[in-house]
């Protein structure tokens, strides 16, 4: 039997100045199941709370109404008061007679008083239906998974590890480093990229709290914040990294040469390889699709037709530690994590859609990232910028901005943000390499919004003598050894044609291949371009709508290195804050399924935005819905959708709301 106590607050004169409190008390006493109705000058004050506590004990109350301010203001306060009186804190209901009554109806005290009474009546009708609720405590696996080993993922992993928590970093390539490892110098300070990145890579590989898994991919994710279960696929490296000492004999002697992905096809690597000299781990993998031994084995397996290919196995013969492991297979591991950080970065736009820029037909039209490789001292040309067609040194270079950016027609309306700056950087560097070089930059707007960026842009003009031409070129074509860039100088209003030796397309950023698939696996949102979607672009930039999963760096949108690092650290801080608790308290105001009523239509499963409802089979073989307490956010969408009313929301049950409505007509 419910025993309701009503506590009406004066809030000084805020309420009492408008609402006639004695009249309210008198009415409240007559409401069903109400055993006591008392008033308080300031309910939220310590004496106010004490009097509520005492009344609960004295009158043996088991339901409480506090008629005062908005629950958004003090619900927590009064829940605590209930708890301190030994009552389940969820047996409280607040009647909002301040924000939604006295403050808005001060013009008519009688009407305000009547309304206050009705508001309390509704609250009483609802509170009678309240049940004790218990938040659950779940343990946390204090280990984080970081997906993607670019600068963002590296920063995140290091920060989490330095906070004292374990980290697993999964990178799908044979080495960490990401795009930054491919860069030569970095704007706006012109630090050498490798000089600032490689120490971090080494720190990471040596950190006792970090487990590095390269050549690996995330396959499946289940569970929820604090308790994720992740299936990780280790691709077969065919090299036992425990034995390998990274001596390099194998990749120096391997006879099979293929275009290097890291050098964007500008250089070669061998079939057994590390992607670049400073790779971490500095141990090779065998690319089976190119290895000669594979070809040999296929020849054997397919009945030895045709000429016998060489068996090769040179790597195996020369390896001093017998590390080559032909029998190594790909392996699937399941690991537990408390949180996941996605830092899968970007790739550059494939400009073969720009036929007017020659698709990929001109050897001397290259991308910005390719130029980085050409300029890098450790790149395929040893840092010499030469034309791919004839090996000559270009003296005139045109840059074309916004290729695959700010272009609705190619489905990429967004600005890639870094290319204005990197073209300026590359023009400065080209001038430094060779003072005779003249650069032209075709741009639409120069976007230099960042610390020291504008100054950097001016440097390109002042020091490197770059000629900026405002206008997007329409065509690139060849005339003898020269490439002609056809544009408009929009400031002069005249078409321009510039014959140059080299054209650099500033291709934009787009999410790494497979980002959408990964997002679906993780149940986080992604936008039309496959960039990950943050929970709030301003206030929760590294969180997602799925608790416990964070996003950082260029996988969320075009970013430069400083922003990536800041985001990596931000995500790490979020992870550390979570891990500083021993358990997670789950909100009890969530959906529960009445198994007997559920007809297994699974409408709720499809409607839940948080994938918090799943289905299961009962012992008698019926398919029914089941909610996951840790995932449910208590929005109630599923409840309104359920026809047989088999699913309900604790704290806001159908019955409670219906009674609350009915309370108005009591």
């Amino acid at each position: 039997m419910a025993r309701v106590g009503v506590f009406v607050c004066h809030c000084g004169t805020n309420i009492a100045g408008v609402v006639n409190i004695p009249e309210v008390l008198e009415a409240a006493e007559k409401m069903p199941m109400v055993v006591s109705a008392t008033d308080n000058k300031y309910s939220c004050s310590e004496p106010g709370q004490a009097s509520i506590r005492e009344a609960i004990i004295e009158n043996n109350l088991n339901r409480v109404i506090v008629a005062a301010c908005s629950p958004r203001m003090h619900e927590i306060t009064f829940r605590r008061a209930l708890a301190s009186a030994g009552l389940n804190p969820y047996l409280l209901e607040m009647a909002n007679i301040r924000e939604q009554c006295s403050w808005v109806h001060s013009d008519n005290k009688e009407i305000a008083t009547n309304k206050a009474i009705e508001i309390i009546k509704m609250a009483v009708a609802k509170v009678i239906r309240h049940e004790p609720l218990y938040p659950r405590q779940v343990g946390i696996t204090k280990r984080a998974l970081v997906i993607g080993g670019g600068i963002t993922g590296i920063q995140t992993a290091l920060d989490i590890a330095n906070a004292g928590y374990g980290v697993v970093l999964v990178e799908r390539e044979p080495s960490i480093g990401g795009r930054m490892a491919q860069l030569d110098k970095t704007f706006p300070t012109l630090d050498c990229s490798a000089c600032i990145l490689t120490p971090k890579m080494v720190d990471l590989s040596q950190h006792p709290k970090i487990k590095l898994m390269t050549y690996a991919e995330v396959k499946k994710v289940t569970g929820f914040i604090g308790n994720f279960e992740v299936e990780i696929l280790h691709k077969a490296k065919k090299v036992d990294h425990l034995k390998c000492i990274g001596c390099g004999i194998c990749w120096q002697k391997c006879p099979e040469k293929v275009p290097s992905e890291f050098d964007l096809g500008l250089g070669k690597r061998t079939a057994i390889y590390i992607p670049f000299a400073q790779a971490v781990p500095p141990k090779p993998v065998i690319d089976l699709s190119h290895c000669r031994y594979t070809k040999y084995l296929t020849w054997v397996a397919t009945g030895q037709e045709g000429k016998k290919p060489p068996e090769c196995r040179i790597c195996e013969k020369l390896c001093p530690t017998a590390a080559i492991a032909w029998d190594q297979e790909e392996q699937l591991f399941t690991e537990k994590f408390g949180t996941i950080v996605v830092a899968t970065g970007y790739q550059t736009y494939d400009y073969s859609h720009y036929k007017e820029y020659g698709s990929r037909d001109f050897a001397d039209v290259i991308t910005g990232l390719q130029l980085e490789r050409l300029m890098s001292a450790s790149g395929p040309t040893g840092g010499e910028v030469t034309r791919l067609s004839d090996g000559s040194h270009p003296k005139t270079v045109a840059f074309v901005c916004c290729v695959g950016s700010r272009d609705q027609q190619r489905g990429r309306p967004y600005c890639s943000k870094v290319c204005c700056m990197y073209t300026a950087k590359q023009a400065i560097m080209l001038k430094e390499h060779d003072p005779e070089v003249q650069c032209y930059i075709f741009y639409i707007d120069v976007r230099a919004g960042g610390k020291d960026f504008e100054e950097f842009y001016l440097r390109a003009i002042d020091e490197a003598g770059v000629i900026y031409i405002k206008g997007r070129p329409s065509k690139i074509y060849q005339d003898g050894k020269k490439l002609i860039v056809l544009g408009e100088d929009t400031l002069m209003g005249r078409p321009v044609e510039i014959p140059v030796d080299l054209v650099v397309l500033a291709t934009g950023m787009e999410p790494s291949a497979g980002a959408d698939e990964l997002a679906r696996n993780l149940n986080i949102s992604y936008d039309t371009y496959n960039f990950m979607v943050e929970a709030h672009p301003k206030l929760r930039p590294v969180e997602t709508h799925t608790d416990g999963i964070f996003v950082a760096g260029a996988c969320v949108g075009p970013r430069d290195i400083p922003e990536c690092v800041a985001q990596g650290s931000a995500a790490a801080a979020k992870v550390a804050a979570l891990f500083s608790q021993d358990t997670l308290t789950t909100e009890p105001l969530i959906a529960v399924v009445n198994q007997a009523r559920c007809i297994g239509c699974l409408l709720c499963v499809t409607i839940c935005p948080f994938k918090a409802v799943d289905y299961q089979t009962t012992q008698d073989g019926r398919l029914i819905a089941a909610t996951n307490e840790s995932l449910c956010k208590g929005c109630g969408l599923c409840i309104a959708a359920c026809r047989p009313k088999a699913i309900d929301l604790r704290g806001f049950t159908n019955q409670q709301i219906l009674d609350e409505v009915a309370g108005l007509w009591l």
Partner: protein
Amino acid sequence: MPGVDVITPKPITELRSWVETLSGQKVARCYQCGKCTAGCPVAYVMDPTPRQVMRALQLGLEDELLRSSTMWICFYCMTCAARCPREIDITKVMEALRLVSAQRKATPAQKDFKLFHNLFISNLNRFGRIYELGLGLTYNLLGKHPLSKAELIPGMLARGKLSFIPHRVKNTDRIRDIFNRIKAFEKQGKP
């Protein structure tokens, strides 16, 4: 009083709304990147250029636009439209401007073009087909052009590529009916 050479933008003008209706294009979308002009094979003789046409429409500089010959020089090659990053069909804008311009008296810059196209249409109206030799000769005659513009005619005649007699369709009445019904429709605004 505003100076003569000072631009006073008039964002909403009759011309602009006409052009937007006729072309189905939104003038404001243009962000002045210049790719249209860059690719336009005749931009070098245009004043204003395609990009500047878009700008003039944005700013409401009607007179300047309607005085020019740009929309008559444009030969609808659609290069601009195929490449515009803001997906504006500039060719349609040019066509709309020409439709508006066709209704007005020719300015000096437009004289030759209007003469040619009017002759073309009247040729069509009379014969049902284009009488190339006649069209060429009348154009040069009426336009007071030196005969140099017709220097290929002897060669064409020699190769049997031109004839002194116009081809004409058998039923020229039907053509005239079409012209008349269009005129009637345009006057009353309905069939």
